[in-house]
């Protein structure tokens, strides 16, 4: 019925903006969300989850100009599975082993914290970006 992903984290690399054959901009970047907690033994623990984020349309084009590696952003989006399995995308690493990724299509992007003051990008129209827009990539 519904699925949403909320992320607050840091860009792992500079964003890349590309255009579909139809001229639709799409900006992609990887985002790390780092979580810390204290385990039952009182030891501090930490885990980083990596997300591959795509931002479509004008919002993507705009945010691509403002984001850079290390910037903090808040993302509201939805998970984009592999269309053939309904599960995470699977790829082959350079060493030949299999990897998998969390692919998220952003609905809203907001800059948080950091240099240059905060700006936000909310595109109500971009809420209507259909999930299948993702599949136009590549």
């Amino acid at each position, binding site marked *: 019925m*519904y699925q949403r992903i909320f992320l607050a984290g840091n860009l792992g690399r500079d964003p890349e903006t590309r255009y579909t054959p139809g001229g639709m901009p799409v900006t992609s970047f990887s985002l790390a969300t780092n979580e810390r907690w204290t385990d039952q033994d009182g030891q501090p623990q930490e885990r980083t989850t990596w997300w591959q984020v795509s931002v479509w349309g004008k919002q993507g084009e705009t945010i691509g100009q403002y984001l850079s590696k290390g910037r903090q952003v808040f993302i509201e989006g939805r998970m984009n599975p592999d269309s053939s399995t*309904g599960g995470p995308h699977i790829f082959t690493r350079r060493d030949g082993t*299999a990897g998998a990724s969390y692919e998220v299509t952003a609905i809203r992007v907001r800059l948080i914290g950091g240099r240059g003051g905060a700006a936000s990008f909310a595109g109500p129209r971009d809420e209507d970006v259909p999930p299948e827009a993702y599949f136009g990539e590549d």
Partner: protein
Amino acid sequence: MYHNVILAGYLGQDPEMRYTADGTPVTNFSVATTEKWTGQDGQQQERTIWWRVSAWRRLAETCNQFLSKGRPVLIEGRMNSDPETGGPKVFTRSDGTPGARYEVTAFTVKFLGGRGEAPGFEAPGDEDVPPEADMEEDAIPF
């Protein structure tokens, strides 16, 4: 800094409760979220994602007691990523090809609609469930 997953969907199977070696209850079940939209060609499109949800401690017990296949639920949780890669855990399917799935550790579960009008439940204490509390590997739910 933060991540959160919200799902509203239907159980694909009856929940299964087990106990860890130290006696902590953990309940696993799969949830399907189906999204529908109209494509640019005017055709109705549909996509289903399967999520493997685990609930711990008291929440595990209430899920096991009240949930069953086909029930609609609202889940609030966290993606249970592979600590080594930060991505989904990769496993080997029976045919030898690699597979992966969306594993979510729930900290809130609420019933949506349907028979019995059972109340929603949540376990505030379970927000402290460490992300590393992993589920066992078993058959993929689809």
